């Protein structure tokens, strides 16, 4: 019979209650729908097929084979030599052997056309952390980063939430295949200025998410020139660099710098991770590669908040320094992704759907604008809902990627078996047939 006294609510911070985590958007809502009703080949054939998550599951077997044959990677063997050092190792420089292996792997992906110095590699627990960390280092609260649209929805959260930095979009359109132009960059810069926002950098994703295409050499040159001109930083998120369908089409900003004799390099920073190319997002492995000594030093210190487990570093150092494994993996992974891409493009074409011509990544950029009632965001979202709830496919609407043209959707194809992909294509086909009839 105690009297209930209302306790004053002990408050939380603005960061804690802010919606900048962005998880209320369709991008994430679709995942939720999948979580609640996931498709399964045998036990839940009418469930939602996940095509909104850019995960690479096509090459697991290669990883398993490696681990099976190399027990030293996942254990410390008889007498466990090196275990003690590994268990105690919390040095934010990271295991030298692992950094060396990462540098080599990054070089291999670029066909040896660029060199990476292991001492410029800073390790973080995932590219999510790497991008946030760089933002903390390159910009102050209230400043702005320019990012070409459409872009990865996670950036809104990763780059802005705790940092209080703003994103100003560089608008790209289908008329030129969403390529980044100097005019668009300048317009974005002016837009930031007019809002009194200090621009600190431009962030590109190359190959692009969600476009699934690499950035051309000429565009990269223009982007670098723009950064030099405005005296700002250039962050190149190359997380999909190993997921190109052919080895020659990807050009890294590192290569551009090399041809320029590394002039202006101190403003360039590359983000990489093993989550996409190696299909190991659960391992939480990301890196910042910076040509700026001060950024490297600071990023290293800040990485204390996001260190990679030493056990994981040990495992991956073994795996990635095995040249035979890594060469074979890169080659095979490319072939399989390419095959998947062909499969989905063909299947969509049969259903009367066109996609942007892509050459990389774990997804394709699908054009459903002809299906929209009106060329507006609301129609796109309505269509997205129908596809999610009736066709039971979770795909990502372009508006969550800040695409300025409604009707585009990102469709992931590497996170499922071929059979499941077939089923997804069948469902799309049926859906399109139905619409034609109506």
């Amino acid at each position, binding site marked *: 019979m105690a009297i209930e006294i209302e*306790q004053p609510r*002990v*408050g*939380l*911070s603005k*960061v*804690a209650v802010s919606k900048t985590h962005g998880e209320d958007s369709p991008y994430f809502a679709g995942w939720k729908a999948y979580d609640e009703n996931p498709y399964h080949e045998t036990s839940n054939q009418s469930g939602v097929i996940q095509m909104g*998550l850019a*995960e690479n*599951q096509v090459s*697991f077997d290669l990883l*398993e084979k490696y*681990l099976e044959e190399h027990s030293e990677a*996942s*254990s*410390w063997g*008889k007498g*466990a030599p090196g*275990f003690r050092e*590994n*268990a*105690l*190792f*919390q040095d934010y*420089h990271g295991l030298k052997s692992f950094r060396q292996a990462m540098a080599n792997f990054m070089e291999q992906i670029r066909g040896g056309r660029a060199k990476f110095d292991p001492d410029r590699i800073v390790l973080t*627990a*995932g590219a*999510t*952390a790497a991008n*946030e960390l760089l933002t*903390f280092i*390159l*910009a*102050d609260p209230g400043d702005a980063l320019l990012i070409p649209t459409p872009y990865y929805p996670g950036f809104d959260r990763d780059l802005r939430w*705790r940092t209080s930095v703003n994103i100003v979009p560089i608008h790209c359109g289908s008329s030129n295949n969403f390529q980044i132009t100097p005019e668009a960059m300048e317009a974005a810069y002016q837009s930031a200025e007019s809002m009194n926002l200090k621009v600190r950098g431009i962030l590109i994703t190359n190959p692009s998410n969600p476009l699934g295409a690499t950035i051309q050499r000429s565009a990269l040159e223009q982007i670098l020139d723009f950064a030099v001109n*405005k*005296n700002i*930083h250039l962050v190149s998120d190359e997380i999909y660099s190993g997921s190109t369908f052919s080895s020659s089409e990807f050009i890294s900003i590192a290569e551009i710098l090399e041809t320029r004799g590394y002039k202006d390099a*101190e403003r360039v920073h590359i983000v990489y991770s093993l989550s996409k190319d190696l*299909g*190991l*997002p*659960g*391992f939480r492995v990301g890196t910042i590669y910076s040509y*700026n*000594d*001060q950024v490297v*030093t*600071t990023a290293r*210190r*800040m990485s*204390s*908040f*996001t*260190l990679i*487990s*030493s*056990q*994981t570093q040990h495992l991956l150092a073994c795996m990635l320094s095995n040249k035979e494994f890594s060469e074979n993996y890169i080659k095979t992974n490319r072939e399989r992704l390419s095959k998947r891409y062909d499969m989905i493009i063909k299947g969509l074409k049969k259903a009367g759907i066109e996609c942007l011509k892509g050459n990389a990544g774990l997804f394709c950029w699908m054009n459903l604008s002809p299906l929209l009632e009106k060329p507006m965001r609301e129609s796109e979202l309505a269509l997205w809902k129908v596809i999610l709830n009736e066709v039971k496919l979770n795909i990502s609407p372009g508006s969550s990627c800040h695409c300025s043209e409604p009707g585009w959707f990102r469709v992931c194809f590497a*996170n499922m078996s071929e059979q499941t992909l077939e089923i997804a294509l069948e469902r799309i086909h049926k859906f399109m047939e139905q619409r034609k009839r109506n």
Partner: protein
Amino acid sequence: MTQTRYYRTRSPEPEKEKTGGGGGTAMRVIVPLQGVVQGRGGLVLGSIIPCALFYFLQFYLKRNRDDPDDKNESNSTGQNPTTRSPSSEHLTELPGLTRSLSRALLSPRNSGPVSISARVSGIVKGGDSPYYMGLKRVKEDPYDELDNPNGVIQLGLAENKLSLDLVKDWLAENAREAILGNGKELSISGIAPYQPFDGLMEFKVAVAGFMSQVMENAVSFNPSQIVLTAGATPAIEILSFCLADTGNAFLVPTPYYPGFDRDVKWRTGVEIIHVPCRSADNFHLSIAALDRSFNQAKKRGMKVRGVIISNPSNPAGNLLNRETLYSLLDFAREKNIHIISNEILAGSTLGNEEFVSMAEIVDQEDTDRKRVHIVYGLSKDLSLPGFRVGVIYTFNEDVLAAARKLSRFSATSAPTQRLLISMLSDTKFVRTFITTNWERLQRMYVQLVAGLEKMGIKSIKSSGGFYCWADMSGFISSYSEKGEVELWDKLLNIGKVNVTPGSCCHCIEPGWFRFCFATLTEKDIPIVMERIQKVLKPVN
């Protein structure tokens, strides 16, 4: 030879006896800051001339400042030359970052024309503190019984190597299966794909069980209230982000873990207000002192959002008793603020006192749980700092929701989780590990204290942690931070022993030093003592 250990079933010891304090019980007067204004008539000139110069300087700078149209000029307020602070290792403890986040005007230097944020330019010179320099020296010249008998012995790093052999043996037999799966089937698909960023539920269950075990089952932890992070370092930072806004403050009793300056303040813009504890109280927390600090802060217009306690405390090694914990909760309730209880050393108690978790306190009080948040991790109690496993345990659903989302920036690695699920589920192993570890810590502590005592160095009786918090004020040349750092330097460079001076921990009384003993073997102790003896020259 074994000390008797306090177990939960006994009643707590009636008195905590101090094994010694600095020069008697009288509190020494702290030497005031050297900002004492001197001069009389000079006072006027002394104020006007600098002001005038200052204004002229500003005027000069303004005229010669970057023209926004001139694209070649640097936009920054300056960058710090990094050459004088080479990066050091073992950076999870970082006391050099005691400065606030104000835009320090550093000497401009073009490492490149493009600037980095003001937020970090003040940080770049963080490597100068004794704490860092000591760690660097050890790395450059580490003691080894056979290979480098004249090297520097490490007593400045809170690592526990005493029981690693037990973990090693377990891993040698079980690691592979543990990571990839039992039986014949190796499955990478269990660990490769995206996992919940706040940790696998199985791992949360295992960690909750472990936490309960190290606290002798006095309290049970609900896995659903756990958020896992890549170490306790991000756990503290995430809580700081969740509970306070930029410019707000936490009250933290001193001396405290040097890393808090980085974890709580660096990227969050949150301040720490020191609440001094004194040797007269054996450095125990005083609620009266908390209250005073809170009121002072309020007067200064600072909003206090919470208190951060460490239990066991670092560096003093105190446990907070039940009464204090209840009083703390009352205090927090009265001021409507949060409590962060850093219990990372809960399993490393020395057996002479009862450890009580904040979780046990709120267990009994149904109200007020929402203001209590516990930080834990496997770096100390399980000796696995490299594996990066930290815990936020909270009773507040809103904090839980926010922390879960924020854990994406500092997530634990899946294969490591798998490995540890196996290990922590092996309750027999865990039990053996915990009790063996207790014994070894206790033994080492006793030996170290005895050794120091023989040289006339008294220390606070420690009840937990890897530290001996010793009073060396009788051996410093001047009763000041300067004197203390001089002694630290001698100990490091002449004695080749790395210890942590109390000033790194913001201790208000000079002369206290932290000796970590859990990185030593028994054989090392006499050598350590010999070396310290060499250095000490009593100052009258």
